C-alpha cells in the first residue's frame, strides 16, 4: 500500500535574479513498511526534501500525500497535530532536551499526545528493550555517548507509533561502531515492528541497511535501486557503483 506519495514537488530559494532550484519536479512514493534511503551529495536537495515532507519547510509547487492526505495544505494547529501523530523524527544532532533524562525525553513524545501517565511507563520499557537502552533511561543526555543519545532519540521517534519515521543523517555524528548498532536497530524496527522509515544520508554504508535507495542529483531523481534478495555486502557494492556514477567524493565510498 502506498503510504507516502511525493508528486512533482518544487522548492525554489532566492528571488528572480538569482533563483536556486533546491528541488526540481521530484516525484516518488514510499510503501508502508519500507526502509527507504535518500542519497545524494551535499547540496543535492535531500535535506530540503526531508524538511518538506516533515512540513518543517513548505514546497513552492507540487503535492505531498501521506495516506492520501495532502500535507502541503496543512496549516497551524493541523501541522502540529500531523507532526505529533503521524511523524517520528531522528535528527543528526539528536535534539534531545538536555534538561530531561532519557526516560523523560521519550515520555515527552507521549505526554504531548495526552497519553495518560499510567500507560507511559510500560510503553517506554518496551521501546527501551527494542533499542537496548534500558540502562541509560535515568541518565541525562550529557552523561550518554553519541550512540546512546541517538538510540534514545530513535526511541522517542517510534514510541508514538508514527506512520512514517524520518531520519536526517542519523549516523552523521556517530563513530562507526555506534553507527552500525543504530542502523541494525533501525533495521530491526523496520522488520519486526513494521515501521516505515525514510532516511536521508550521504554515507553509503548507512544506506546499505535500507531496502531501497533513491538517489537525488541537483534536485531531481537520478537513480533508484532495490536491495531485493541481495546480501548487504552486494547491495553496498551496487551503491558504490551508483555513487561513483553520481560523482560523489571518494570518502563516501569507504
Amino acid at each position, binding site marked *: 500500500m502506498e503510504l507516502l506519495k511525493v508528486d512533482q514537488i518544487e522548492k525554489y530559494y532566492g528571488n528572480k535574479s538569482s533563483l536556486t532550484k533546491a528541488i526540481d519536479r521530484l516525484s516518488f512514493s514510499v510503501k508502508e513498511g519500507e526502509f527507504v534511503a535518500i542519497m545524494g551529495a551535499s547540496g543535492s536537495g535531500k535535506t530540503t526534501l526531508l524538511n518538506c515532507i516533515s512540513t518543517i519547510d513548505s514546497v513552492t509547487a507540487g503535492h505531498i500525500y501521506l495516506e492520501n492526505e495532502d500535507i502541503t495544505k496543512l496549516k497551524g494547529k493541523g501541522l502540529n497535530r500531523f507532526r*505529533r501523530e503521524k511523524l517520528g523524527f531522528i535528527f543528526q544532532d539528536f535534539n534531545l*532536551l*538536555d534538561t530531561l533524562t532519557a526516560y*523523560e525525553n521519550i515520555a*515527552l513524545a507521549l*505526554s504531548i499526545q495526552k497519553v495518560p*501517565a499510567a500507560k*507511559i511507563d510500560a510503553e517506554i520499557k518496551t521501546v527501551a528493550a527494542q533499542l537496548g537502552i534500558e540502562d541509560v533511561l535515568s541518565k541525562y543526555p*550529557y552523561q550518554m555517548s553519541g550512540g546512546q543519545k541517538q538510540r534514545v532519540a530513535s526511541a522517542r521517534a517510534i514510541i508514538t507509533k508514527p506512520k512514517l519515521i524520518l531520519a536526517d543523517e542519523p549516523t552523521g555524528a556517530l563513530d562507526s561502531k555506534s553507527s552500525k548498532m543504530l542502523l541494525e536497530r533501525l533495521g530491526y524496527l523496520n522488520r519486526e515492528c513494521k515501521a516505515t522509515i525514510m532516511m536521508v544520508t550521504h554515507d553509503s554504508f548507512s544506506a546499505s541497511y535500507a531496502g531501497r535507495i533513491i538517489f537525488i542529483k541537483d534536485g531531481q531523481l537520478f537513480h533508484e535501486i532495490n536491495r531485493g534478495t541481495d546480501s548487504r555486502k552486494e547491495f553496498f557494492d551496487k551503491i558504490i557503483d551508483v555513487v561513483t556514477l553520481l560523482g560523489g567524493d571518494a570518502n563516501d565510498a569507504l
Partner: protein
Amino acid sequence: MLFKISCKNIRKSMRDYAIYFFTLVIGVSIFYVFNAIGTQMGFMKLADDTRQISELLVTLISMLSIFVAIVLGLLIVYASRFLMKRRNHEFAIYMTLGMSKGRISMILVLETMLIGIGSLVCGLLLGIGLSQLMSALVANLFEADMTDYAFTVSCDAIVKTLLCFVIIYLVAMIFNSLIITRMRLIQLIQSGQKSERVHLHNPVLCVLIFVIASAVLGRCYYQVGWDYANLTTRKLLICIICGAICTFLVFWSISGLLLRLVMMRKKTYYRGLNAFTFRQISSKVNTMVLSMSVICLMLFITICTLAAGFSVRNSLNHDLKTQCPVDMEVAAVNGSKPVDLTKDWVMRGHECGFPIDDYMSDYVQYCLYYFKDYKASDFLGPEAGDRWDTMIETFIGVSDYNRLAQLYGKDSIELSADEFVLLCDFKNMTDMRNDRLANNREITVGGTTLKSKYDHCVDGFVQISAQHINMGVFVVPDETLQNATVNLMVLSGNYRANTDAQKKSVDKKALKAFEHDYLINTKIDIANASIGLGAIITFIGLYIGIVFLIASGAILALKELSESVDSIHRYEMLRKIGVDERDLTRSLFRQTGIFFLLPFAVAAIHSVFGMKFAVNTLEIFGTGGLPESIAASAMILALIYGGYFVVTYLCAKAIVRDNSRL
C-alpha cells in the same frame, strides 16, 4: 571601529534586555524625583513648622539616597557581570582574532558609557516629568498652597543624580575590566561547550533542612509576632539574622524538593509539557538560590514599609480629628515644687499676659491626681514585671471629667460612690488592664475600695494628643481624691477666633505666654508635627519600596530572559516534534509565573508576621485602616512587580517565537 562594534552589540542585546535599560531609566528618574522634593518645596507656601519638618525630610532623603545608590549600584554591577558571562563566546572570537584585552575592555567601557549616557538622559527627562506629579503629592501631603506653583527643574537633584550614577557606572566599568584581565582564552572557548548539568541535592538532606529552617522561622515568627513583651533588641536582631539565613535555606531546599515533589506525582509530571516546564523552573531556581533569597527579603521589606507607612499616615490624620477636640491645653506640673492650687488659670493667664477670657471662648479647668502609694505595679500585680514600679497611676474626679467630656463633645460618666471607670486607648496597655479587670475589678486607693463599673477599660482619653497614647486614667468619685496629690493642673479650651488666621495668631500668643513655665499643647502644633511625620513616613516607604521593587523585578527579568535565549533551541525542538504553539506559550507563562511567584510567596508569608510585629511596634502611632494600607501597598506591588512579570513574559515570548521558522 571599536565604537561601531559597541553600538552594534548594544543594538543586538537591546532587543532581549530592553527591560534592563528601562530599569536603569526608572532608577535614575526615581533618584531624581525624590531628591528634587526639597527644591520643589522651596516654591511652595508652607507653614513655618511644616518647613522645619520638610527640611528634616530632605535630610532623611539625602541619607536614604546613599543607601539607594548602593542598592542600584549593586544591581548594575550584578547585571553587567551577568550579561558579560553570557558573552564569553563573543570575547573568545575577539581574542582568537588577536584583539588585545585592553581593546576588549575598551569595547565594554564604550558600551557602558553609551548605556550610561542613554539611561541618564532618558531617566532625567522622565524624572523631571514625574517630579511635577510628585509636587502635587507633596503639596497634598503637606497641605501646602499650590496656586503659585510652576514647572520646576531641580539643578541640585540633577547634579546629585549625575554624580551618583557616574560613580556607579565607573565602578561597573572597573569591575568589567577586572574580569576581562582575568579571562583566559581556553576557558572562554570551552564555556560554550559546557553541557548543562542538573544538580539535584540529596532529598533527605533537603527535607531535613527544610524542616529545620521552617521550624526556626516559626520560632522567629512567634517571637516577633506574639512573644512581643519579652522581645529585646538583641533577640530581635537574632530573629532577623536567623530569618534571613532560614530564607536562604528554604530556597535551597525548595530548589531541590520542588522537582522531586512534582516528579512523585507521576500523573501531573507526565502530562503535556509539565516535565519540561518543571525542569526549566527547577534549573532556574537552582542557579538563583542566593539571588532569590535576597529578592524575597527585599520584597518583604517593601511590603512591610509600604503597608506600615501608609497605615501610620492614615491613622495620624484620622486620630488628629478624634484625639484633638480642642484648640489648646496647658498644664502646670508637679515638679520640683508642688502645684500652687491657690492660683487658678484665670490668674495664671493674667500673670503671663494671656488673659484667658479675652482669648478663649470656652474652656475647662481640671486637675489630674496621683497616689504616692499606688503605682501601676499595684494595679497590674507583681506578675506583670517590675518595670511598672515606677509608673504612677493617674486619677481624675468624675465631676471634672464630665465637664471636660462636655467640652470634648463626649458622653459623660455616671458613678455611684464606690465605683470607678478606667479610661485607656493605648492598645497594648488596654489589653493588660483588661486582663486585670476581668480577674479582679477592685482597687484600693486613699483608704477606700472601689469597684470598676465595667469588667474592661473604656476607650477614651483626657489630655489631647496626636495619637492613641492614653496609658490609663481612673475616673473616680470626687471624694476619693481628698488624700491624693495633684500632678497636673490643666486648662483646656478653644480660642476665641473665627478664621484660621485669627486662630494662628492666638496660638502664637498662647505659645509665647506659656511655653516657658508650663506644659502647652496646641492643636496646630500637633497637626503640623503629625502631618509632617505622616509625609516623611510615606515618602520613605515609597522611596525604598519602589527601588527594591525595580531591583528585584530587574534581576528576575534578566535571569528569565537570558534563560529564554538559552532555551531557544529547546523550543525549536519541541516545535519540530509537533508541540502546539499554545502549549509552548502556556509552558513559558507557567515558568515565568512560578519564577516570579516563588520569592513573592515566601515574602508574603514573612510579611504576615512582619506586619504583626510592625502593628505592635507602631501601636503608639495607631495603625488604623490597616486593610486599606495593605490594599494600597498591594496595588503598588502589583503595578511594579506585576508589570515586570508581564513585560518579562512578553519579551520571553518574543525571544522564543522570533527564531521559529513557522
